[in-house]
């Protein structure tokens, strides 16, 4: 599980071009992405890379990276 989270964080760091130490569980998603379009791009890329499906309702309660990682774990 830890390995999967690390792999997802590495992917996000590479995608957003941010250092991995910025990707703490408490980091808010809105702070990590430059704009809404980048958020959409990232979510689509994550689903493609890690083979899961998110929907609109899934994200309504997610604010932090930790929340997103937990959601992805639950979806797989």
């Amino acid at each position, binding site marked *: 599980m830890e390995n999967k989270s690390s792999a997802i964080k590495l992917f996000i760091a590479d995608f957003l071009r941010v250092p991995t130490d910025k990707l703490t569980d408490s980091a808010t998603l809105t702070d990590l992405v430059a704009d809404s*379009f980048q958020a959409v*791009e990232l979510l689509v890329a994550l689903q*493609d890379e890690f083979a899961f499906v998110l*929907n609109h309702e899934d994200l*309504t309660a997610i604010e932090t990276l930790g929340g997103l990682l937990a959601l992805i774990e639950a979806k797989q």
Partner: protein
Amino acid sequence: MTTTRPISEDERWLLSFYRTSEITGALFFGRLAKTLPPGPIQRDLTQHFSDESSHASYWTQAMYELDCKPEKVRIAYQDAYLDAAGLPVNIMEILAITQIFERRVIQQYSQHSRMENVHPVVAATLKKIMSDERWHIQWVAKALTSLEPRFGKSAIETALRRCKEADQAVYRNVLMEHRERLASLLDSGAYDRAGIGVETDAGDDDGGITEWKTRVAQ
């Protein structure tokens, strides 16, 4: 009926608004085209990106030809869509919002082309763009069908309905917010004042579901 009268400031704003929306669409689809895995959706979305980019160029060229330089429009129509409908989080939701948005674009352009005294340069640009926009609706409808096994028919219908509701709210808000600038359009009779936000040209009013199903059958 067309005219060669000078372009008013309100029309300059409207053409700038169109131009900004086309640029925003091109940037969004371009970024997505880069991200998506290979396949028919990637292929068609890349063409869509190219079209939006061309449309932005057509509007820019038209405005220069009309000697009315583009105005900086801070917010694109798509931004308001994302605010109202929420962030699309997967490719199906992106295509659902695109389907609804493209229908709105065709309706808007079609209504504009029916205005009294449309400048021939504007009329020609609208006509050129509208033929591409029809293809956009077609490919997106087919792509949504291809995504049924992955996302389910019901989820696609739900997404289309949600986007449709957002579309009506956004369109109504835009018309209200810019009512002074759009007064000439409203007064031309191209818009039914009582029916603002109601589909008149794009056919069914069920959020694109009939459109999607019709395309599937073809």
